């Protein structure tokens, strides 16, 4: 046994897959201990916030100010509001207005702004402009206000007594705050989803739930497969015929169809995570049964089994003592395979809308479901679904890698 374990950990594939899997597990377990926010808590008003570091503006006003004189500060500021696209748009407007092209240099900010200020008129009739475009230019014009000024911004507070605005503070253009000193800063590495939830926290929780579902379903499926396989292989005869018939039947009748039918029929209310896991487990034991049965059949004519039979041991004893140890390796591999299949099955069900109830826990599939329903993939909000897909891929990939590694250890013929 120890030798086997040593061999297993020598297999490059297994170790690689195992490390990835353990890494995922660690993240799932440790992350919630550090970040204790509820995963389904809605934290943003509005959908699909991009990943980034969100700094509370109000708090940063009150934070300690530092003056930094950086050369490119002004250029960055201007570029932030007047990017290439905006410059081209302005040029377009000016051209349509009638300014000759030779006079327009979009690289010269001052000149461009000067031309714009002199000539821009929201009411002037430019041919072929739609209403939307007109509004766009109005907005553009408004955003350009004060672009070149070097004065700071004034923070004024409403005086409750007089009702007027009183100047409280001036925020200079070279004033910086240290993000670490701002009271409220929220890092959203994966932004928010369509509901306004922190995707990363949600993802970690969802991964955990999916793994649990996978585990439960995998164990159920493996147990069923093991039992049926043992019975069919060892007892043989009519029992074998019946079990083989069932197996063949359910091989051909698509498993996912049954999964869909059962999940649907159970109904939304009854579909908790555990129930879904059970359903998946009960519809995916086919492959394991077949594999176990094949192994048992080849084992039952071995000498040590015959010896046991001659010694008068009961069937139960023979199965547990003589056969199980030899198929242990297959069972382990089958379990891994079942878990990984179950995770994908749950994801598939959830995408269809037949997964676990949506209000209690997120699962990887549910996250995908929401992302698709809200068109994240079309809108380019990649953070709502891509990390989920990558997680699923990582989990299943690492498990299958482990399996391949194990396979090569147990089946020397497959070694390269």
């Amino acid at each position, binding site marked *: 046994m120890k030798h086997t374990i040593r061999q297993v950990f020598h297999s490059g594939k297994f170790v690689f897959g195992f490390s990835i899997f353990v890494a995922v597990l660690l993240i799932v377990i440790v992350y919630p201990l550090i970040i204790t926010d509820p995963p389904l808590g809605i934290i943003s008003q509005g959908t699909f916030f991009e990943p980034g570091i969100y700094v509370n503006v109000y708090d940063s006003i009150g934070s300690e100010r530092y003056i930094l004189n950086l050369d490119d500060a002004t250029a960055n500021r201007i570029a932030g509001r007047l990017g290439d696209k905006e410059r081209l748009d302005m040029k377009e407007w000016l051209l349509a207005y009638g300014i000759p092209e030779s006079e327009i240099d979009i690289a010269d900010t001052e000149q461009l702004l000067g031309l714009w200020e002199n000539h821009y008129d929201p009411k002037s009739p430019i041919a072929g402009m739609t209403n939307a475009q007109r509004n766009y230019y109005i907005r553009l014009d408004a955003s350009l206000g004060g672009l070149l000024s070097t004065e700071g911004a004034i923070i004024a507070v409403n005086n409750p007594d007089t009702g007027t605005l009183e100047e409280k503070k001036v925020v200079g253009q070279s004033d910086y705050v240290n993000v670490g000193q701002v009271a409220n800063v929220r890092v959203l590495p994966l932004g928010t989803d369509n509901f306004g939830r922190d995707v990363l926290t949600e993802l970690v929780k969802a991964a955990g739930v999916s793994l649990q579902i996978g585990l439960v379903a995998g164990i159920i499926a493996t147990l069923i497969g093991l039992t049926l396989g043992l019975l069919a292989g060892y007892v043989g005869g009519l029992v074998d015929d019946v079990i083989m018939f069932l197996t*063949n*039947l359910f*091989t*051909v*009748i*698509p*498993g*996912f*169809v*049954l999964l*869909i*039918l*059962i999940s*649907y*029929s*159970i*109904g939304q209310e009854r579909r908790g995570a555990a129930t879904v896991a059970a359903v998946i487990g009960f519809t995916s034991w086919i492959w394991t049964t077949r594999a176990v049965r094949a192994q048992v059949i080849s084992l039952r004519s071995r000498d040590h089994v015959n010896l046991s039979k001659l010694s008068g041991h009961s069937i139960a004893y023979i199965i547990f003592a003589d056969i199980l140890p030899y198929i242990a390796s297959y069972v382990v591999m089958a379990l891994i395979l079942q878990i990984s299949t179950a995770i*994908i099955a749950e*994801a*598939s069900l959830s*995408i*269809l*809308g*037949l997964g676990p109830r949506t209000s209690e826990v997120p699962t990887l599939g549910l996250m*995908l479901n929401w992302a*698709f329903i809200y068109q994240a*993939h*079309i809108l*380019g909000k*990649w953070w709502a*679904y*891509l990390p989920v*897909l990558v997680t*699923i*891929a990582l989990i*299943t*990939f690492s498990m*299958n*890698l482990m399996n*391949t590694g194990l396979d090569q250890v147990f089946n020397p013929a*497959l070694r390269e």
Partner: protein
Amino acid sequence: MKGYRRYFLNKLGWFLVTFVCGFILNFTLPRLMPGDPVAAIVARMAQGMSDATGVQAIYEQYTELFGTNRPMLEQFFIYVRNVLRGDFGFSFSMYPRTVADVLKSAIGWTMALQFPAIIVGWLIGNTLGALAAYVKGGFDKVLMPISIFVSNFPAFGMAVFLLVIFGVGLEWFPTSGGYGYDMIPNFSWGFIWSVIVHYQLPFWSIVVIAIGGQAIGMRSMAIYELNADYVKYARFMGIKDRKIIGYVFRNAMLPQITGLALAIGTMVGGALFVEIVFSYPGLGYTLLNGVMGQDYPLISASTLIITVMVLSANFIIEILYGVIDPRIKAAQAD
């Protein structure tokens, strides 16, 4: 041909048995669940209504329509009779369209997409796997990890991947639908071209997934066969390698065909998800709409049709195998 008869009848019998079982399962499973399906449906349908008697009337109407007030066995025979007539009832979510009507076009789209895609993917995958086994070296070392990765990627994942890269990112292909939004199905070139363009992404998604799965299997089979005794013996007898390769691939292909028959269920499942991701107007999309709209008759009929499709495909492949593998004919002849 006489040798085939027994094999053919055997497979036909099996097809009928599995069909009957699938049919019965399709019928009974939903009805075994506790609760009254009609009540739930009516509850939702009548959400806007405040008139109690109105709700009651609808409930009674649907109960009559579905026969849920009759014993199970009687319901079954009514169902069978209806199915044979092609009557699957009315679709809830798309009332007054009938389920049959909704399915008719969906089936066409699905068949046109999935079966060519699966076959093409299977062919390419097997060829690549065989090449990797024979050529070895760099090609093999590159192909293997890619195949392992692709085959482990869930079907919808691959679909999303391609959609995002080619549809949204590069904008080479449209991202949804079977044809342009503004088009009405007709036989004009414009329409046909639109169909072809919309066909690309879903098609290639399914192909890529099929390739990944097949390549690995074929490579293993081919490696196994390449080391077989008859290969060595043929070499001893001076037969050219090229001819021997032909033997090997023919022999390695056979289990792959059987494998396809066994895997067709899973492949169709995956392909259905591809349809969903691309909002392609096939059975997958219909199923999704059915689930979202709690459209029980639609769901039931869709799953039945899918089951029939898979069973038929399985049957055809098994028959094909019997034709191709000369040992079957020989074994049956005596």
